[in-house]
């Protein structure tokens, strides 16, 4: 059973803490969504978990500190999709997804038949087969997002980190992308940690929300517990209505101030 345990995680840039005192325990299949206003520390926390920025405190993956893992070892356990992934225009979809196999290919080696099989089956699984030989520059936003997720999955890591996975997508594609992540985390028992701006979608898909404000976790729990008008007013400075639907969905609707704000 995979587990990801964060204890007193703190990230500093130039002596100034952007994340501090974050504690979380995640088990295989859990989806934690980080929410909070711009600059709250969501991305920094994800980058710390991906080993891209220094942090203090402890992050344990299956009982071992990620700080002690080499880059390749970490990449086999944690896959990271940044907010704006770089997709070289003239790289083919297959070659791009194959990048996700890098942690398994020796520095001077080349991909094995197994690597190619994994990439081909992921491409099929994510309905990308017809694009396999297309160049990334020719893909639409929704297709690009699927390709990026396919690359992350090619790492076969038990932990998937997504920074604003839907920010560049229209409503339909947002739903498709999140449904896909949801289906995959259940099928592959992944631990998913994502940062999201759309609070309704965040509450709809994740098991748990962690509201960050100035780097500190100020509210955590289910959508019902975290998404409250007074909480949002306090930390986002927004006047919003929170509607609890019968099916359990929590809908956040910003309210128009009619010029009183």
């Amino acid at each position, binding site marked *: 059973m995979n587990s990801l345990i964060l204890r007193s995680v703190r990230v500093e840039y130039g002596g100034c803490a952007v994340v501090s005192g974050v504690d979380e325990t995640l088990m295989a299949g859990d989806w934690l969504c980080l929410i909070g206003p711009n600059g709250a520390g969501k991305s920094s926390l994800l980058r710390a978990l*991906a080993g891209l920025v220094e942090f203090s405190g402890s992050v344990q993956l299956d009982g071992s500190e990620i700080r002690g893992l080499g880059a390749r070892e970490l*990449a086999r356990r944690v896959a990271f999709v940044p907010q704006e*992934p770089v997709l*070289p225009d003239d790289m083919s979809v297959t070659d791009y997804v194959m990048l996700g196999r*890098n942690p398994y290919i020796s520095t*001077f080696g080349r991909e094995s038949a197994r690597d190619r099989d994994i990439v081909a089956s992921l491409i099929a699984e994510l309905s990308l087969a017809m694009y396999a030989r297309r160049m990334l520059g020719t893909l639409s936003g929704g297709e690009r997002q699927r390709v990026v997720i396919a690359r992350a999955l090619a790492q076969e890591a038990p932990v998937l980190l997504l920074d604003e996975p839907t920010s560049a997508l229209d409503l339909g594609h947002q739903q498709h992308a999140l449904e896909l992540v949801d289906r995959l985390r259940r099928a592959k028992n992944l631990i998913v940690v994502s940062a999201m701006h759309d609070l309704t979608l965040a509450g709809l898909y994740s098991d748990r929300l962690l509201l960050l404000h100035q780097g500190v976790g100020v509210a955590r729990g289910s959508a019902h517990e975290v998404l409250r008008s007074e909480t949002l007013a306090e930390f986002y400075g927004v006047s919003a209505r929170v509607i609890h639907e019968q099916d359990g969905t929590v809908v956040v609707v910003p309210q128009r101030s009619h010029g009183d704000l």
Partner: protein
Amino acid sequence: MFVTPRGGRGTWWVLGGLTVVVAAVVGLSLGPAGPTWWRVPLVLLDRLPLLSIDSGVTDAQWNIVWQIRAPRVALAALVGAMLSLAGASYQGVFRNPLVDPYLLGVAAGAGLGATIAFAVNRDATATWPINPVPVAAFIGGVVAVALTYTVGTAFGRSRSATTLVLAGVAVTSLATAAQTFVLQRNNDVVRQVYSWILGRLSSATWGDVRLVLPYIAVSVGTLLLYRRVIDVLRVGDDEARALGVNVNQVRIIVVLAATLGTSAAVAVSGLIGFVGIIVPHAVRLLMGSSNRIVLPLSMFGGATFLIAADVPSRILTSPAETPIGVVTAFFGAPFFLFLLRMREARQ
């Protein structure tokens, strides 16, 4: 869209190698003196084991082919392959299409070294058993890069690619200033230095080939081994790191390997511009940007290009020599513009 490398990347290695061989035969066949051009391929076949062909080439003519043209062709192949592969590698690890093999100050350092060697190379060094110019150029190039590297990485945490490049710019200015100063005080060597800067293969000997071969072999081997990892860097430092690449380490190894080979090439051939930028770009225009294919094909393309450029360089103004740097730019620039235009038209 691009000529797709599917169906075996190995095919491109074979084709690339064949292109170099064809260029080499052409390079050996043409020249102001020596046997009629069509006899040269015959005599080459004759020299192969198990083959005997009456080529009608005299021993004196064979000497011209083997002692004068062959080292030139070999050196052109080595230098062209090195500069072009180094250029492609620099462009890959810095993700900047405009950087060239002289980026970290190799050119300016080697230029300074050569200038000093020319300035003191009066009567005192005339009797030396080895020509001090290549040695001085090599030392100058390596010292300049070592300086760039030391300065560029001295700023602790901000050790970024940009810092290194900026340090290269500063070291280049410094070395160029020093070179100008030395030249001003030694007016009589201006012509020699100038012709060295334009690059030449005219004085190539088998000794030059032996001198640079080990450095270039190590450099080429290292760069080719890293071509897959350099390709991973195309998605940016952060993502490459998240994919398990030790980005800083790879960049340093690649830069040092490329620089070592470049210094050796510059030491024997002077500054041959253009090859390190134009050849990799021509390859990219034709084949797409995958470094796994761009690196080896740039190497073959660079060798072919420089062997070919050396032919007009010895024939055009015969018996005088046209500097090869002039030829590469004169033919390379229009060719590159043609490729660029072709691609625009295709899109």
